[in-house]
């Protein structure tokens, strides 16, 4: 039972981290119709910038400065890159962000090399906040939960209580209304892209010490972010939250329980072939849940897209 509780908490951390990334992505998609393939690359930039800053002045200034720098970089990409491609339509936009993802990975390797960076959580948070049945729960993860919840509440406040938020909300549900924003459309786009990427950068700063800061960190997380917002429903903030938590828990629990295909197959009355080592189905019989855990989200996405293209919470089709 205590393991379930630990898993719930771990899944919550993973889910909330995912949400920090997805909230920016879904915001960008809703406003601009661009599925930003490079979103996870901005996440990576956040981690690297914060690492670089932390080598000079420590972790905390990095936590504040790095997302801002990433946001500015994002805004510049929108202003000088995306806007130019925009007139050719959505497919070139998607291809542009795809190319950008490749490029950012190369640029990161250009400056920081290919090895893992020793980016660590601050000393002050390097202790076990509490432990459940011998499982230590690091204070840094508690801090992550607080930051993520704080971001969510701030977004919720901005979206529901401010003028800008009203406009964005309207755009979430009715993309045509974006056209009615008047002469500020380019500025709003730039702002949204900047804020979205800054959120990704913040997620990167938070995740860097836990998941490791290395050039492959964007690829590892890249496609899972799409999966999350597609499953949640494009353009839905609540959907993004729900899907993030769902996928966080799905992955945590899948990795935690060694359900084997053998048990499943024998329970439905099949018997294990005697010549398992040479049987064509040997891989099926030896399959375990943790083995397939990481691909479950993709399976989920394909199923969602095939049967409910608008996603679990979305109102409009992808």
């Amino acid at each position, binding site marked *: 039972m205590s393991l379930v509780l630990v898993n719930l908490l771990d899944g919550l951390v*993973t889910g909330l981290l995912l949400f920090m990334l997805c909230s920016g992505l879904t915001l960008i998609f809703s406003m601009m119709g661009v599925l930003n393939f490079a979103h996870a690359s901005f996440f990576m930039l956040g981690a690297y910038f914060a690492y670089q800053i932390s080598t000079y002045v420590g972790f905390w200034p990095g936590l504040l400065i790095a997302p801002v720098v990433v946001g500015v970089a994002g805004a510049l990409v929108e202003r000088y890159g995306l806007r130019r491609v925009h007139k050719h339509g959505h497919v070139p936009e998607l291809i542009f962000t795809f190319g950008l993802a490749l490029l950012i990975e190369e640029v990161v*390797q250009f400056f920081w090399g290919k090895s893992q960076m020793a980016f660590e959580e601050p000393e002050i948070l390097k202790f076990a906040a509490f432990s459940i049945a011998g499982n230590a729960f690091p204070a840094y993860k508690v801090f992550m939960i607080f930051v993520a919840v704080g971001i969510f509440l701030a977004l919720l406040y901005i979206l529901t209580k401010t003028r800008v938020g009203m406009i964005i909300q309207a755009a979430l549900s009715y993309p045509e209304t974006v056209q009615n924003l008047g002469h500020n459309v380019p500025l709003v786009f730039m702002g949204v892209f900047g804020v979205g990427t800054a959120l990704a950068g913040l997620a990167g700063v938070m995740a860097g010490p836990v998941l490791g800061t290395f050039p492959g960190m964007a690829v590892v*997380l890249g496609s899972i972010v799409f999966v999350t917002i597609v499953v949640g429903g494009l353009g839905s903030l609540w959907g993004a939250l729900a899907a993030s938590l769902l996928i966080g828990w799905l*992955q*945590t629990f899948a*990795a*935690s329980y060694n359900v084997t295909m053998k048990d499943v197959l024998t329970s439905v009355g099949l018997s294990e072939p005697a010549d398992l080592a040479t049987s064509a189905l040997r891989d099926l019989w030896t399959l375990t849940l*943790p083995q397939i855990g990481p*691909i479950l989200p993709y399976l989920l996405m394909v199923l969602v897209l095939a049967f409910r293209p608008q996603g679990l919470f979305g109102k409009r089709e992808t």
Partner: protein
Amino acid sequence: MRKLAGLLLGAIIAISSTAMAWAADTVKIAFIDPLSGPFAATGEQGLAHYRFAVDELVNKNGGVLGGKKLEIVPFDNKISAKESLIQLKVAIDQGIRFIAQGNSSGVANALTEAIKKHNKRNPDKRVLFMNYSAVDPALTNAKCNFWHFRFDANADIKMDALTDIIAKKDDIKKIYLIGQDYSFGKAVAAAAVKYIGAKRPDIEIVGNELHPIGKVKDFTPYARKIMASGADAIITGNWGSDMVGLGKSVLASGFKKPIYTYYAASTGITKTFGADGKGPLKLVQEGMINPPASERAAAYMKAFKAKHPNKDMGQPRIANVVEMLAKAIDKVGNATDMVAVAKALEGMEHEGIFGSKIVMRAKDHQAIQDVHILAHTDEDITFDLDNSGFGLKVESTVKMAAADSATTCKMKRP
């Protein structure tokens, strides 16, 4: 456009082959390993050591065949099997007859197959494969061939040595096995089950699982399982970011007992673990770095560090590859009769610079040597890794590990 591209290709191939032609008084070794992409750091480190080794160990002492120098020619395989085969062709075109590769057993499998076919189809242009790091046991068992030589201890041998040590630790009652879901990870797990079962049947294997390679973002759930299982030790063959992720999560969950690994060192990993890893983190590897095996070894490493302050000597066996190959070439008297060179390598006994005798076993072309259990620590470290102050210190040694182990290799000799 097509013509233009063709002309360009022709020009470039012509240039590169003439560039090679003037250096005909050297014996070239093609180094086919990742020099770009996510594993480039390991490849670069290997290349640096190879270049250093041929200069320091052979060329400074008069080279081979009475004056010819050994030369390392790097080829970037981007850790892809396909690219490796292309680079193999390029290397053969340039007249190179010795191929060195180490990173990824998948690539090694592809290369050994391709070299076998090439040597069969082109008897006048045969090449030898110096495998210095790919440890999939199959390469010297079911898939062995006459042209392949492995200088590292394979996964089985390392596990044999490791379990010799574990067998002596009475406080270990429960062991958790975890690895990446592919041939190497499976080989490690299978070997662990076999040897522990034979040497310490009382040890309970409380977990034996494989996780997808390079796809796990957060190892915390695995760490929780390991904690819940009450394991006294962990054995893992993980490398790269999978090693870092697993190690960090396990340590953060409060695990204080030994974590036996194959590859938890250098290329940023040692620095990342830092003080957290001191105590639990152990490695099984050949080559004695701390304390240095001899004055000569110390001088060798010191010179390397002076030349490459940001690189480590992560794969000490490279020195053995270079020395043994030079010896074999000198014994045969030419570097073109590959059958003779291979026969000279077969069964060769060599006193390695890092304090171990190396025997290239004739029946399967597997090097037999001392294997050490190393501790990740910052005490008594002469040569650290990642310039972190932390390094690997020999804790215990298994002399000539698994020297009489069985092999399924049925070597066909020409």
